[in-house]
């Protein structure tokens, strides 16, 4: 294995584990901040001390998660500069604005109002305190917006012009960043945080029920958590559908990988339960699945909202075949053509640089023209074969199903909890139901992380779709430095995670012994 491949693989692994760790804390911040704001709003309206106690309890857990999670994302920015320098230079103008706004908003808005949230009880007016709580929640979501806009641009790069002198993509339309992919991604990610927080609140509250402590507080919290979580989950599913439509339009290879689909059809079914055939390649005649239970026309409905629409498979995309809404076969750009265009674009960039050094304006103009004509497939020029352009099908396929199955479970979970808490006393009486709720909590994190895996593994081999693959994005650094920092980082974040969980558990146990009702 070449040193470059080792650098790429370890850099990818390091970035993945950093992002996974970071996302352990973020969705709980996004959702629990809103739950706390809702409870405080109820307190202000009812003046009931019970709601004040509930607000303060969940606010403390929010604070623990916020404190442990703060700055975990900064490591990702460090990695951009060290491991991914080609990528960060290439995209700098596009990433710079959203990340700068995120940093400024995160620092000023959240940290200002989070201080009022915790220090301001009895020092500021109740209305100002409530406003601060809502603004903390809003600040967290606005921070997430900028990160997700930047990530969405990686999936669908728009609103820029490549400058071969600066070697950067220069933003020429800021508002283009708010594409359909960005908007769906933002709402999908934030609302999934709402669902996660709902599960967390229910799980912790069920621990109270199991211990038979502060039962009234627990039931009150479960009601808020369940309604909030249900709303979050329904909206997450709605935006998930929107995301599928956008992925079908702009990243058809990702959708094909999510389905393990190699040869598409009109009225394409969706593999509800399936086992992929490990021998299947895009250019052989093996069956796609060893076993499949399909939902007829499901993928056409999901991807194009048209039960008879054609959904291309991996082989169709590579061969440049599509079928339009009228049923006509149309040719898109095959991968062989894209590789040829990409090589032309890269060669033009090389000759542009040489001409610039030689001061040959005519040659510069000629190279620039060729570069612009072929730039949209610039990244394909790095591939020796089309196989390099196919994402990891197995992992994308499995992660998609984990996300959907768990998401569906939690939809039923919220409905069941609401039924039990309003119509019966089953939740208070049954230890095994309380245990199901508690054990469900980590699975919501699995669901959430699986969603990110679909988005980011399905994006491979691209760091910027069609323009820059991972092989070209990494810095020319020794593999050993990446390996060392990987393990260093893994150790530090594991320690942080253990610290959070133990502080959180200790706090929950300590608070449970106080009167919260």
């Amino acid at each position: 294995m070449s040193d470059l491949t080792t650098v790429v693989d370890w850099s990818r692994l390091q970035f993945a584990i950093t992002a996974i760790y970071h996302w352990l804390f973020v969705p709980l911040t996004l959702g629990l901040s809103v739950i706390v704001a809702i409870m405080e709003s109820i307190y202000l309206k009812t003046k009931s001390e019970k709601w004040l106690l509930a607000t303060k309890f969940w606010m403390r857990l929010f604070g623990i998660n916020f404190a442990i999670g703060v700055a975990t994302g900064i490591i990702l920015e460090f990695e951009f500069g060290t491991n991914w320098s080609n990528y960060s230079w290439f995209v700098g103008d596009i990433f710079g604005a959203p990340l700068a706004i995120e940093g400024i908003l995160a620092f000023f808005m959240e940290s200002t109002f989070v201080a009022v949230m915790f220090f301001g009880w009895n020092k500021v007016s109740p209305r100002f305190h409530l406003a601060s709580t809502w603004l903390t929640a809003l600040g967290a979501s606005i921070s997430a917006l900028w990160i997700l806009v930047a990530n969405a641009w990686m999936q669908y790069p728009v609103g820029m012009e490549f400058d071969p002198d600066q070697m950067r993509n220069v933003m020429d339309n800021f508002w283009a960043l708010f594409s359909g992919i960005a908007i769906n991604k933002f709402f999908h990610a934030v609302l999934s945080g709402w669902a996660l927080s709902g599960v967390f609140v229910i799980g912790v509250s069920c621990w109270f029920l199991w211990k038979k402590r502060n039962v009234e507080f627990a039931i009150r919290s479960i009601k808020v958590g369940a309604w909030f979580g249900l709303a979050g989950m329904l909206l997450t599913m709605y935006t998930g559908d929107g995301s599928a439509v956008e992925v079908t339009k702009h990243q058809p290879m990702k959708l094909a990988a999510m389905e393990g689909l190699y040869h598409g059809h009109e009225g394409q079914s969706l593999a509800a339960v399936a086992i992929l055939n490990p021998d299947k390649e895009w250019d052989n005649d093996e069956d796609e699945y060893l076993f499949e239970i399909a939902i007829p026309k499901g993928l056409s409905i999901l991807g194009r909202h048209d039960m008879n629409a054609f959904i291309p498979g991996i082989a169709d995309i590579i061969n440049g075949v599509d079928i339009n809404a009228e049923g006509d076969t149309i040719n898109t750009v095959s991968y062989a053509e894209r590789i040829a265009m990409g090589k032309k674009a890269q060669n033009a960039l090389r000759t542009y640089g040489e001409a610039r050094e030689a001061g040959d304006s005519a040659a510069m103009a000629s190279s620039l023209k060729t570069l612009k004509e072929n730039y949209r497939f610039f990244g394909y020029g790095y591939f020796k074969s089309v196989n390099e352009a196919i994402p990891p099908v197995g992992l994308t396929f499995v992660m998609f199903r984990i996300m959907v199955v768990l998401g569906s479970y939690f939809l039923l979970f919220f409905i069941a909890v609401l039924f039990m808490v309003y119509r019966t006393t089953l939740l208070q009486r049954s230890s095994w139901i309380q245990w199901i709720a508690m054990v469900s909590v980590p699975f919501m994190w699995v669901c959430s992380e699986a969603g990110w895996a679909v988005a980011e593994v399905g994006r491979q081999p691209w760091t910027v779709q069609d323009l820059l693959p991972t092989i070209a994005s990494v810095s020319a650094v020794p593999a050993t430095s990446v390996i060392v920092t990987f393990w260093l980082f893994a150790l530090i974040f594991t320690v942080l995670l253990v610290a959070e969980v133990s502080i959180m558990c200790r706090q929950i146990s300590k608070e449970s012994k106080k009167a919260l009702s």
Partner: protein
Amino acid sequence: MISRIIGSSARGLKNIWMFYYTGFREMTVGKTLWIIILIKLFIFFIVMKMLFFPNFLSSNFDNDKERADHVRHELTNR
């Protein structure tokens, strides 16, 4: 009038200072969290950033032209 403005600004700043001072002083579990935050920030920004995560392009090249030339070479010779 100016002295009144200065006086009220100074009082305002003092109130903000006391708000944070008493807030931090009265923390319970917050103290542990702040210790964790400060240790974490030290490790991230002093240990990790300075020793293990130098910015590759800033460390190895003096100006944007050199960085752009390096990236051009990298992207056209991979």
